[in-house]
């Protein structure tokens, strides 16, 4: 059986590499997208196997909030939990993200332990 997958949407290749190590320890596969538009393409192809989306907020092109708004309006994708992983720690952004439907919020920088703990929380709530 194919492994379940986690989609990481972040324009930083280094952040995606850091996430890959933690995600593989949890026995999930990592799908990567460097921005919102690319992530929508990945979602269209891999919807059935994706159990969580890790989403950066500030990205060139489609921002994290625009991507979130797009998928939450789409019946095919709206139930996939989304965890924001961002440098944006302002209360206003956290409130806005929660109101937009994120399941969890993780501030950069994070440790591997913090990331895996939050991923488990998100997936086990489904």
């Amino acid at each position, binding site marked *: 059986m194919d492994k379940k997958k986690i989609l990481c949407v972040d324009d930083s*290749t*280094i952040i995606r590499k*850091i996430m890959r190590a933690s995600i593989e320890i949890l026995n999930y596969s990592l799908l990567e997208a460097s921005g919102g538009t690319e992530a929508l393409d990945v979602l269209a192809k891999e919807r059935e196997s994706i159990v969580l989306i890790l989403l950066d907020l500030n990205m060139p092109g489609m921002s994290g909030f625009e991507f979130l708004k797009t998928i939450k309006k789409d019946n095919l994708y709206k139930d996939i939990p989304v965890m924001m992983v961002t*440098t944006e*720690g302002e209360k*206003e952004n956290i409130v806005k993200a929660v109101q937009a439907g994120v399941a969890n919020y993780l501030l*950069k920088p994070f440790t591997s332990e913090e990331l895996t703990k939050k991923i488990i929380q998100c997936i086990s709530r489904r």
Partner: protein
Amino acid sequence: MSDDVMNNPGNLALSGFFFSNAFKDIIRTMTGLELMEEKMSMEDMKAFKAQISGVIILSGEKSIMISLSMSFIAATTLISFMIGAQCSELSDEDLNDGVSEIANVVGGKIKTKMSLSGIHLNILTPFTIKGNDHYITQRDKVLLFIKKFHNNDIEILAKVFAL
């Protein structure tokens, strides 16, 4: 300029003490490395020649630019610790992306801190500057903060400019 308080013409509500602790905490979390601050004269700091710098700009009612400058060896060591890879496995893109990501995280921390004082800034896309013996300066020379951090062979020169 005092070691602990930024030269602060724009009332940016940001102390050198906060910046130093935030930066050391970010490096500790991202790499596991403990950085120490090093006192230097202004002349020594001007003599610091970098090979790669990560730069982030925060813009808004007050705007600042943060630069983190270091050698390629220092950057390679930091990034290898960040992703758990051997130095020899790292590509140029890894170095560029890693150094700019550190600047991005530092910028995010400063943005959050300043929002607590009612100053709301936008964080722009980080970038890197590469080249042997480069030195970052700014036309009007509104340098708010400058400090060197080190851990064994790693030396990082952090600067905060008012724009």
